[in-house]
Structure formats: structure tokens, C-alpha cells
């Protein structure tokens, strides 16, 4: 079996860090458990200052952009892998038998 390579060690560290982050919300501050104060008035969206509104457009573009990038990167990796294995096969088929 191969020894752990540097990328695998990095991945193990990342997974450990993700596990620690996942465990952290278990300690919830008492203040966060208190119910929020009742809302005494409704504020129309149009009256909220533009700085406090969260625009949807960048999030939408980011989501669709990510889908395209993820699919294209995977197709490119698959293409490279297919090219490499075809080259290997050509080399093996044309190499002289000893």
C-alpha cells in the first residue's frame, strides 16, 4: 500500500478542520436561545435603505456560473484522462515485443 502523500495529508487536515467546525455549534450561547422580541410593525421592502438589502442577482449568477465551471472542469479532466489512456494504448500496441 502506498504511504500517505502530501495532498492526502492536506486533505486529512482539511477534513479534521471541517469536523471541528461541525462540532462547534453544539456550544450555543444562552443569548442565542432567547426568543426574539415580537415585531411591532411591518416595514415595506422599498423603505429599507439599499445598503441593507441583499441583492439576489450576484447570488444567482454565482450559482449558475459555478454549475458551468464545475461541469466544464470535469469534462476537461475527463478529456485529458481519455487522451492519456489512448496514448498509452498506442504506445503499448506499437512497442516491439522483446
Amino acid at each position, binding site marked *: 500500500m502506498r504511504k500517505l502523500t502530501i495532498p492526502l495529508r492536506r486533505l486529512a487536515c482539511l477534513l479534521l478542520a471541517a469536523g471541528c467546525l461541525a462540532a462547534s455549534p453544539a456550544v450555543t450561547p444562552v443569548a442565542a436561545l432567547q426568543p426574539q422580541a415580537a415585531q411591532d410593525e411591518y416595514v415595506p421592502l422599498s423603505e429599507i435603505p439599499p445598503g441593507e438589502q441583499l441583492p*439576489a*442577482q450576484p447570488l444567482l449568477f454565482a450559482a449558475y456560473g459555478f454549475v458551468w465551471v*464545475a461541469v466544464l472542469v470535469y469534462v476537461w479532466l475527463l478529456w485529458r484522462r481519455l487522451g492519456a489512456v489512448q496514448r498509452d494504448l498506442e504506445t503499448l500496441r506499437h512497442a516491439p515485443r522483446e
Partner: protein
Amino acid sequence: MLQRLFPLTIVLALAGFATAPFLIGAAPYESTMGLVQKIFYFHVPSALMMFAGAFTAGIAGARYLFTGAPRADRLSAAASELTVLFGLIVLVTGPLWARKAWGVWWDWDARLTSSLLVWLMFTACLIVRRYGGPGAGKLAAGVALFGAANVPFVYLSVNYWRTLHPKTTVVPSLGPGMREPFWFCLAAFLMLFLTLLAVRTRVGELEALADDLALERDVVREH
């Protein structure tokens, strides 16, 4: 069969992805979420392809475990990779929607956490295949089988546990104008899934052929 259907699926997938933005753009805005709800048209089909990948990997993995058929192993490996790809899309597009809809990027509720766990299980499959050495295929097939067994829990989690995530009733209750782009996007994602599965399985077959040829040459050289 997948490879015979490849020309058809690739044409349909390309046509689907070229047309989908126009249909999504023309779909009506949802009353409470507005524009950001349109992430749904790619997010839900990706999630369903993640489930399809997990089931394919699990069933092919079980076949490989019980019969030892190398073709089943290659199909399981290909489907595991696609589960990770579509799962990554789900886990990135979901938080982008949640930031606007819920005000937070992530919440440790049943649906989100179980989806992350399935994704991590299939990522583990790929790591085992890459670094596990001899016998890694069987181990990865076992992990894929358990990963697939989790999928029904992920799907039904929103109905059985109290969660922020919309329930499974959202899709059947889609109104006119939203229904058509959704089913169109689902068909486009299905074609993409089948195309990638056919190509990835073919790559696996060629790699196995190259390994056999190299082994044969080594044996001839030794004699």
C-alpha cells in the same frame, strides 16, 4: 448500451443547456423569494442526479461485491465520481440560495447535514479507490452501497424532521410557467449525467485494457 446512446445524449444535453437559460429567464418570480428562487431550476436537478449517481454506484457496487464483474466495478467508480460532481453543485448552489432566503449560508438541519454526509461518503469512495491499493475496489463498492442506502433518508428528511429546507411537495405543486422549465432542466441534467457516465465508464474500460496489455508484455518479457 450507454455508449451506443452517447451521440444522442450529448446532442440532447448540449441543446438542453443552451435552451435552459431562456426558459428559466421567462419563468415567473416566486412570491416570497423573488429572483433568487431561480437557483432552484439547477439546484434540484443536480440533487436528483446526485441521487441517481449514488443509486447507480450502490447497485453496481453490490453487483461487483457479489459477482466480481469488472464492468460493474467500472460503472460504480464512474457513478461515484458523478455523485461527487453533482453533490458539489448541490452543496454550493444551495447555500447561495439560502443566504438570501434564510439569511444564513448554512444550517445544520437534517436535509443539509445528511446531504453533506452522502457527499463525504462518495468522496471517501474516490479516495479509497485512488490510495487504497489492492482490494480497494471492493472496499469502495461497500462504501458506495451504504452511501446509496442513505439516499432515501436524505430525500425524506424534510418530511420527517423539522427543517428549514422546502419539503418534497414543492416540485409536484409547481404552477404553470414554473413547471415546464423545471422538467426541461431535469431532462437536460439527465442527458448530461448519462453522457458523462458513458464517457467515464469508457475511460475506465480503456484504462483496464491498457493495464492488461502492460501486464501481458511484462509476462512475455519475463519468459
